[in-house]
């Protein structure tokens, strides 16, 4: 194995001979953060492998099942509907996968380093607990959404290209497929949905899971889920109400009516992962997106305050926790 640094002359010891690329100058404060995020990707390859695998499988499904069916019909509207529904399915699958990966990642993030005692190695390096916790929080809040967008948009392009190839191959005009598939709008909507719901709206959940993973000695999932379930059950038993459960559902499903303005002509109020399908289905225009309304939702800001508080508690715990 040779790395570029092997050829570095010894006379430059002060120059950190980083491999590949040096993204930031040696003493930049973002440098430990950058490497901490890379470290997470080394350790948890499922962050990108799982969505990639799901995308690959659904792509095969598309080629085998949908492509032929869609192209066998001469009705252009029908053809488009079939392709679109498949695309919606693919994007929902990818989003669902990254959602699940994010949950598993967050529950393990600060637990595994205590379990295998490697926390003693990480703490022997000049990386603050704040940097460590933020780099771990960035996986569900930045890296996974980014992977989702990139992968979904790439899938959209691949599926359109494949359809066009088949259409052209059979002597038909592929232009309508492109003119009527609002690529850019779907991509932007997806991005908007991920930023508003998956990042900003769901942030307290991830912060909570990180906190529990830094605190629990074992059974992280139970410690994360049981208190929440207990509150709902107690409320039901004592007051026979479901305010907490409703609140939880609201926090999970996202403020879609707020984010997207008037609930458009979409059919059903699906769960978070399905909501993009409505978006892609019903909103080929960006007109129904209403960021102002989203940004003035009190729940958004309350959630973000809670997120900051939970992350601060996580940093505090990480500082004083010893290996298990």
């Amino acid at each position, binding site marked *: 194995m040779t790395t570029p640094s092997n050829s570095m002359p010894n006379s430059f010891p002060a120059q950190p001979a*980083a491999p590949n690329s040096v993204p930031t100058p040696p003493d930049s404060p973002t440098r430990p953060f950058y490497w901490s995020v*890379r470290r997470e990707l080394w350790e948890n390859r499922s962050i990108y492998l799982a969505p990639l695998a799901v995308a690959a499988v659904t792509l095969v499904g598309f080629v085998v099942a949908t492509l032929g069916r869609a192209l066998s019909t001469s009705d252009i509207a029908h053809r488009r509907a079939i392709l679109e529904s498949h695309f919606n399915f693919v994007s929902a699958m990818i989003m669902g996968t990254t959602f699940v990966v994010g949950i598993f990642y967050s529950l393990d993030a600060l637990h595994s380093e205590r379990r295998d005692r490697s926390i003693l190695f990480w703490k022997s390096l000049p990386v603050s607990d704040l940097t460590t916790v933020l780099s771990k929080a960035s996986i569900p809040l930045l890296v996974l959404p980014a992977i989702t967008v990139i992968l979904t948009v790439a899938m959209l392009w691949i599926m359109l290209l494949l359809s066009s190839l088949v259409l052209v191959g059979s002597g038909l005009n592929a232009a309508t497929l492109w003119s009527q598939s609002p690529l850019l709008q779907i991509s932007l909507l997806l991005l908007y949905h991920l930023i508003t719901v998956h990042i900003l709206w769901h942030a307290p959940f991830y912060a909570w899971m990180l906190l529990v993973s830094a605190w629990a000695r074992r059974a992280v999932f139970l410690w994360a889920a049981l208190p929440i379930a207990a509150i709902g059950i107690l409320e039901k038993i004592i007051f026979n109400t479901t305010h907490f459960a409703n609140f939880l559902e609201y926090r999970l499903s996202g403020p879609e009516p707020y984010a997207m303005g008037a609930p458009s002509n979409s059919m059903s109020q699906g769960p978070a992962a399905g909501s993009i399908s409505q978006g892609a289905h019903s909103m080929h225009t960006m007109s129904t997106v209403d960021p102002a309304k989203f940004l003035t939702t009190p729940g958004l800001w309350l959630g973000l305050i809670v997120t900051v508080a939970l992350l601060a508690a996580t940093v505090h715990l990480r500082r004083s926790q010893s290996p298990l």
Partner: protein
Amino acid sequence: MTVIEARGLRKTFGATVALSALDLRVESGRILGLVGPNGAGKTTALNAILGLIPYQGQLKVLGRDPWTERDHLMRDVCFIADVAVLPRWIRVSQALDYVAGVHPRFDRAKAEALLAKTTIARDRKVRELSKGMVAQLHLALVMAIDARLLVLDEPTLGLDILFRKQFYDSLLNDYFDRDRTILVTTHQVDEIQDVLTDVMFIDRGRIVFSSTMEEFESRYVELIVNPENAAAARALAPIHERQVLGRTIFLFDLMTLHNIDRPQLAALGDLRSPGIADLFVALLGNPSTPPQPAAKTGAAK
């Protein structure tokens, strides 16, 4: 230049006192061995010095408060903990990349050169390496960091004698110099007696003995006598005696024996320098102060 200064350092875990008013001062350029029975507070003391646990009392490491400034302190301090702590999933090349990425004082070329002397392949994962190789890898990473204080907590635990010897040789020849300080704890203290410049005994959360090695060697002497001279030797008030193969070994503290010198003792039998472990047993293991039952749990060791 003082590297570590602790005054009245105290740490309790619930009702258990792990450190009780520990005073400690380490100057730069020393190799200090911290010796103590299990549960004496060695690891707790090291954890406090490394900023891994909060504590009461005063503690400054390189002029910083370890608990509040751990991340800054770790630019100048390295440590190898008493267990294999390199993450098992990491590849050797990734470990090099990561440390090079986050540590401004890491000299990658030096680490590569140190690794080149071993049989460790760059594309191996830590879980695929033997125990000795993991220790070599960790040592290579640490030695390539231009740190001022290196803390080693049982760094050679579970390694065979060849690795242990290699480990300390490497440390002395390729790393240690006058500007660096090494603080080491180990149960195989006799093996590193020649390496140390200073030794301290810790017991029940406080430092009970502290000496430079020169002092140690001029102050303590062992006298091996045949049975016929045992009574005469015993009359000179040795601090410890033990039987080996029919002969008796007496340990004398020359500082407390004002009217006796080495030639007088030599007349009774053979003189030799005691090992650190012998003195340790004499001071902490003699019947008048029975060894304390392991006084604490978990976090200390």
